């Protein structure tokens, strides 16, 4: 039996480019990966703060051994979602503009109706 089992982290099959310039797809992948690293770092800082609050001191092992209970995980998940929402604001806002567009249709229809009466 070999000592090491390695899983090549690439899937077989052509990777589609969604943008005309595939570099934009690559940049998107990099931004998303970076966002993940920041979130991991935030969780680690949160762990350190919680351990310090509780014990006033900590070791690396304490951090590694810390597992969020459901309450902490829910709190972290709320923070993650706010963070994602801020990070991808520019895309989220485009969706909100579309909703506003629908609202404008409603408004115009109402105006037409009122004009007739």
């Amino acid at each position, binding site marked *: 039996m070999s000592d*090491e089992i390695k899983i090549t982290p690439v899937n077989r099959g052509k990777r589609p480019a969604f943008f005309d310039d595939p570099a934009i797809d690559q940049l998107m992948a990099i931004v998303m990966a970076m966002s993940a690293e920041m979130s991991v770092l935030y969780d680690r800082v949160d762990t350190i703060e919680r351990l310090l609050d509780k014990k006033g001191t900590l070791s690396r092992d304490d951090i590694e051994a810390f597992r969020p209970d459901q309450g902490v995980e829910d709190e972290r998940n709320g923070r993650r979602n706010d963070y994602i929402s801020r990070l991808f604001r520019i895309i989220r806002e485009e969706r909100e503009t579309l909703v506003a567009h629908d609202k404008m249709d409603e408004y115009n229809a109402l105006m037409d109706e009122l004009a007739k009466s």
Partner: protein
Amino acid sequence: MAPQAPHDLLIEPTHDEFALQSYVSALRMFTLQEIGGGLRGVYESRVKPSFEQERGRAPTDEHEVRHAMMADPYCRTWSSMMRSAQEMIWDSIIPSIERAQPDLNSRAASLAQKPKGSMTLDPDVEVPRYVSASDIHLMPGNYYSERDAGDVSQGALYDRGVYVYAGGHGGPYGDSIGRSLAQHLKIRFPDFQPERVLDIGCTVGHNILPFVDVYPDAEVHAIDVSVPVLRYAHGRAESFGKPMHLHQMNGENMSFEDESFDLVMSVVTFHETSRTAMKNILAECRRVLKPGGLMIHMELPRTADMDPFDAFYIDWDSYYNNEPFYQAFTSTDLKAAYVDAGFKEENYMEVMTPDIYAVPEDTFEAAASGPENKAERYGRLGESIHWTGWGAWKEG
């Protein structure tokens, strides 16, 4: 993310790996729901009007919608994010599996020592081309890569991957479809008490295991073409203390005797097989079913019943998530296929059930015992949806 039900093959992630998996899951869900939720608006407010202006009519099928949508910047951004999020799921899990080896394989071997169930391997079974052609849903190594004697790595990757993918919404055992189906059948057909149950394309056994709970007197069998996932399924079932009999077999050509099962089922297996394979599997299902037995396949919703936009949305995975047979499946007329396989039209049946973990017990029961139960929305795993199944009773 809520914790996954622990078993002896489940890999414990480090502090940072858990943080990464939780984040990737949240990021995928945000992309799917918050960004993806805007696609309909994009379509209605600008893609469709500009198509109409150019062609003098609305798009008539999903292919026209896809060509128009994939030229829209918002849809491109969503697609690019979906693709990356899917890749990130697997990336967030792989290091923990490599670290757990070779101990993980040894643990699987010891769990198989004194089994309550069994595992029968057949080296003559080949991985069919429709499975091996590309790494399905972008999972590196696909279902079947075997890197060492007794390797279970791909089973471990799939078990955790599905959990992160669904953000834990599939329940602690990742069995929401199977458990919903088993409970639905029990309520809807109280006189149906299967003695032998068969699952086709079981992977790690997520969806067949609940049948051991819901029908405790039944003998439960499951088949797959991949050895690493079967080994993992075997160890996982043993670790939970649930008897399950696993076989390395292709559903197109099973070695079970004629009329030997009361219930033959599958969960999201058909959309990963070709049309020819589906035909062969249906014939085999009918052959191994006892008279009066039930065949039921839980699958993706039919795009034929949808407007072109919803069909485009459902079939996106076919083109961009390495699901080459997704679209071929969603456009197949299942009732006709069942009749072709020899089932009587009047014995055709459908299942439409809410997710057992997502609704209160009485809502679930009402849906199972009610005369009809229509899906309120279409979606992908992880969204709040109804599970759909297509089946037929064998006459007799």
